């Protein structure tokens, strides 16, 4: 045996085999470089070469004295700790007097990657061998299309990306493939996927299918459960926006704040288009990679894009970048966005055929409609200077509901037409998905579902539990008898894959064409093999027809200005246009100002309306026995957790003091998910404001109230 007595061992990183590693993810910190020298027999050391971190020990082979050989072992597997004997061995080498420089890791510059790091990268399995395809190193359940492989490649090389492919192009799949490869290459150790609650199970299923060795957990349930779920040793954590918002508290020890994620994915990233607690929470996560995924990065205005880009273009762990509409935003947007359109990449995707169906109200419907419209206009006129946009929107909503179905007789021209169409479609073996923005059993999802009993319809609404939602989708896909799936637009409009249906029907028109398109693309997406027919209903001679004309005019304008970026036209409807729908004049600013200086009772109405428009069930307390609370709002979030909001209204001429905040705090029930609001158009005194801030009490002053009331699009959504 040769007298090879010195050798160096380079610690690169711990490595476990793919499958062992997948079952027990690494939780320890990245190990530091260690150099261990073992000595079995003293041998003259001739030199040490230094290659960055690597100490190369030259030694003489005794039987070949003229041949000098340097040996370096870069091990990618686990290494022992440097023992005392080994340290002494290293010192022994130094004492030989013929040493070069051994680079101490503590003195290394952090900017230049070490040789070990470079080798680890260079020696990794080539990307082409990892990407889904035939005979590849990783086993994949299917192949990716070329544009999807490109997407994965780009994801792998970008720590900031807004993946904005058209809906239905497999964005989720690309993200999962990229995550899997990053995990396999040991470039990441943890990932957090933030998605709408309705998509959490789908994410887990897709992960199980496309990255079976990755362990994933959905963070949901009670606070105790979520506590351990956040710290569970998994590769991928999946959480809803609502849960993240709830768990991301000001406490720096709150679980989402404590962890530093290697990758954070914001699925359906339009959910963070507004700057609010939810978007603040996801932007506040410590992360190395930020990937936003959405087919509609801009729905209403550039501000929304700015909010999403702020998440993508994350700063360091302390500061957070802020963008506002303008050249800088557009420049960074161009750098971080990857967008492919169906027409470009899916040449074989069957077409989507959109048909607008104009139907006439049935007699009883027409009577109800005319009566409601006349009464509504009289009411609006009667309000005089007190009339506001919200009153108009209330009337529009009521009329739209009558267009769906007459609340008195249940008659519906739309239901009749749908029923007839489904009979034909079912006979031909087709399935249909039907959307409504309402869930009501009089004019919404439940009503339509009742009407379509012959087709064994299934319903999908926000009040279903996750298990129920998954079961509904599974049954619709599996059983032939279920010819119709009736969904609420809000709960089922995004993320679902429903290629089994080739017909999409919109019972009522949504204000935002992008939302409609998203819903249609549940069916018109990758893997769809037949043309998708979309039907949109509009009742003639009704408010629906008038709004449609107005929206189309606005949409045309935006189409010319912003290529293929859908806009929420409702946001761009001015007060004048909304009032104009009923032949009324919008109140002037002076009128608005006057209306805000109204009585306390009016303030309660305003607050109640604000909450109702956002989906809260509102209860107003008796004025004389309000106990410091005037309005109580209750609702369940998308994960089924009940939330309450307690509002104290004080419409005083001067800022209200600390006592008001104390009263409100004293009236709050014990428990979580309770928010407290002081609504005071004149604001709070400094003491009052300080107490409110310290106790997490929200303050709605005059400007906040105006903003809340003026957010038409949010109101409508």
């Amino acid at each position, binding site marked *: 045996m040769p007298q090879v007595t010195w050798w160096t061992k380079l610690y690169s990183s711990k490595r476990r*085999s793919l499958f062992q590693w997948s079952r027990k993810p690494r939780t320890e910190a990245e190990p530091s470089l260690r150099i261990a020298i073992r000595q079995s027999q003293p041998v003259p050391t001739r030199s040490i070469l230094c290659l960055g971190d690597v100490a190369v020990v030259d030694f003489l082979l005794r039987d070949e004295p003229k041949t000098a050989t340097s040996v370096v072992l*870069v091990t990618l597997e686990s290494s022992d700790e440097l023992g005392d004997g080994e340290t002494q061995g290293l010192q022994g080498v130094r004492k030989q007097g013929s040493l070069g420089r051994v680079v101490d890791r503590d003195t290394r510059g952090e900017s230049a990657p070490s040789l070990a790091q470079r080798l680890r990268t260079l*020696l990794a399995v080539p990307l082409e061998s990892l990407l889904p395809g035939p005979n590849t190193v990783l086993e994949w359940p299917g192949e990716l299309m070329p544009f999807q492989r490109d997407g994965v490649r780009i994801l792998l090389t970008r720590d900031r990306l807004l993946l904005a492919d058209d809906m239905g192009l497999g964005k989720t799949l690309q993200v999962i493939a990229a995550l899997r490869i990053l995990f396999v290459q040991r470039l990441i150790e943890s990932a957090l996927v933030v998605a709408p609650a309705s998509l959490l199970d789908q994410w887990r299923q897709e992960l199980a299918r496309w990255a079976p060795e990755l362990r994933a957990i959905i963070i949901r349930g009670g606070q105790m459960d979520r506590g351990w779920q956040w710290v569970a040793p998994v590769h991928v954590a999946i959480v809803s926006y609502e849960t993240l918002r709830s768990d991301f508290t000001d406490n720096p020890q709150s679980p989402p704040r404590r962890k530093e994620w290697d990758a954070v994915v914001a699925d359906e990233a339009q959910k963070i288009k507004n700057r609010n607690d939810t978007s603040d929470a996801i932007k506040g996560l410590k992360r190395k990679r930020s990937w936003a995924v959405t087919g509609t990065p801009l729905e209403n205005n550039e501000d929304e894009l700015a909010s999403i880009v702020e998440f993508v273009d994350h700063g360091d762990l302390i500061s957070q970048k802020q963008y506002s509409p303008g050249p800088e935003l557009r420049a960074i947007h161009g750098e971080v966005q990857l967008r492919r359109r169906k027409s470009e990449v899916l040449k074989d995707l069957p077409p989507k055929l959109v048909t607008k169906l104009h139907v006439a109200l049935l007699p009883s419907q027409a009577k109800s409609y005319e009566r409601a419209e006349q009464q509504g206009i009289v009411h609006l006129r009667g309000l005089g200077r007190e009339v506001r946009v919200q009153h108009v929107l209330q009337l529009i909503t009521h009329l739209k509901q009558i267009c769906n179905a007459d609340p008195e007789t249940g008659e519906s021209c739309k239901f009749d037409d749908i029923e007839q169409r489904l009979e034909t479609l079912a006979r031909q073996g087709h399935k249909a998905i039907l959307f409504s923005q309402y869930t009501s059993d009089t004019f919404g999802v439940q009503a339509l579902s009742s009407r379509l009993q012959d087709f064994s319809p299934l319903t999908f609404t926000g009040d279903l539990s996750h298990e129920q939602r998954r079961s509904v989708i599974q049954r619709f896909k599996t059983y032939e008898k279920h010819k119709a799936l009736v969904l609420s637009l809000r709960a089922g409009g995004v993320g679902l894959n429903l290629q089994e249906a080739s017909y999409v029907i919109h019972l009522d028109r949504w204000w935002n064409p992008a939302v409609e398109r998203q819903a249609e693309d549940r069916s018109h997406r990758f893997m769809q093999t037949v043309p998708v027919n979309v039907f949109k209903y509009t009742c003639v001679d009704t408010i629906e027809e008038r709004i449609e004309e107005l929206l189309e005019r606005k949409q045309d304008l935006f189409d010319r200005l912003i290529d293929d970026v859908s806009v929420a036209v409702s946001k761009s409807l001015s007060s004048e246009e909304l009032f104009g729908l009923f032949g009324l004049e919008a109140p002037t600013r002076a009128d608005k100002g006057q209306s805000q200086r109204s009585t306390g009772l009016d303030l309660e109405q305003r607050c109640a309306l604000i909450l109702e428009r956002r989906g809260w069930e509102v209860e107003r307390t008796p004025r004389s026995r309000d106990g410091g609370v005037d309005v109580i709002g209750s609702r369940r979030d998308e994960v089924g957790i009940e939330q309450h909001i307690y509002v104290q209204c004080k419409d005083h001429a001067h800022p209200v003091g600390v006592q008001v905040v104390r009263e409100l705090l004293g009236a709050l029930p014990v428990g979580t998910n309770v928010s407290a609001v002081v609504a005071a158009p004149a604001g709070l005194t400094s003491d009052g404001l300080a107490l409110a801030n310290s106790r997490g009490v929200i303050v709605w002053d005059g400007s906040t109230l105006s903003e809340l009331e003026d957010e038409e699009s949010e109101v409508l959504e």
Partner: protein
Amino acid sequence: MPVPFRDLSREDDAGVAGYLRFVDEPDGKGIRGALFVVSSRGEPLDFSFTRVDLRGGFLWRQGEAKRQAVAALAKSLFEAARRAPTVLIALADEVSPRVFTEDIEVGVPLCRVSTGEIEIQAASEEKERLSDAVDLFWVNGQPPPDSPARSLVDALNGRNILIEPFERASIGIREAFDRNASGHMVDKAV
């Protein structure tokens, strides 16, 4: 002696392959070598690299000097290896079969891979046509069909990564030794 065991849940129990790569130094004065150990999925496990001066002078025929150098490199690399590969794979163009018949006797199946037209160069070698483009030369005969070495080679071939690790090994050698490969200077402080 530790208790021998086999972790059935480990994919690596399909075995690990050791790729031997030898590259001439640009100035022709030495040879660089690497032992690159990968899993059956091509994942890098160990990378050892080393170099040796070529013997010079009129007493040495060039082929002999290279063979001696390769043997010296191989011995050093084997000595440094932390795990026994299931199979050793070398390039037929780089390694003479005599290295493993006359200089070193290895305890694991070893094959030389050729993508060109070469013939058996040692009596103990056995040629296997793996595909139209790839021939294997088993230095001490083919391993049995149900052997771990056979399974491993088939697994690597099935994943189209039987030859690819040689390229990575070459890149690794270049990175480790060449000054310009990464911009990091080799500080030869003798």
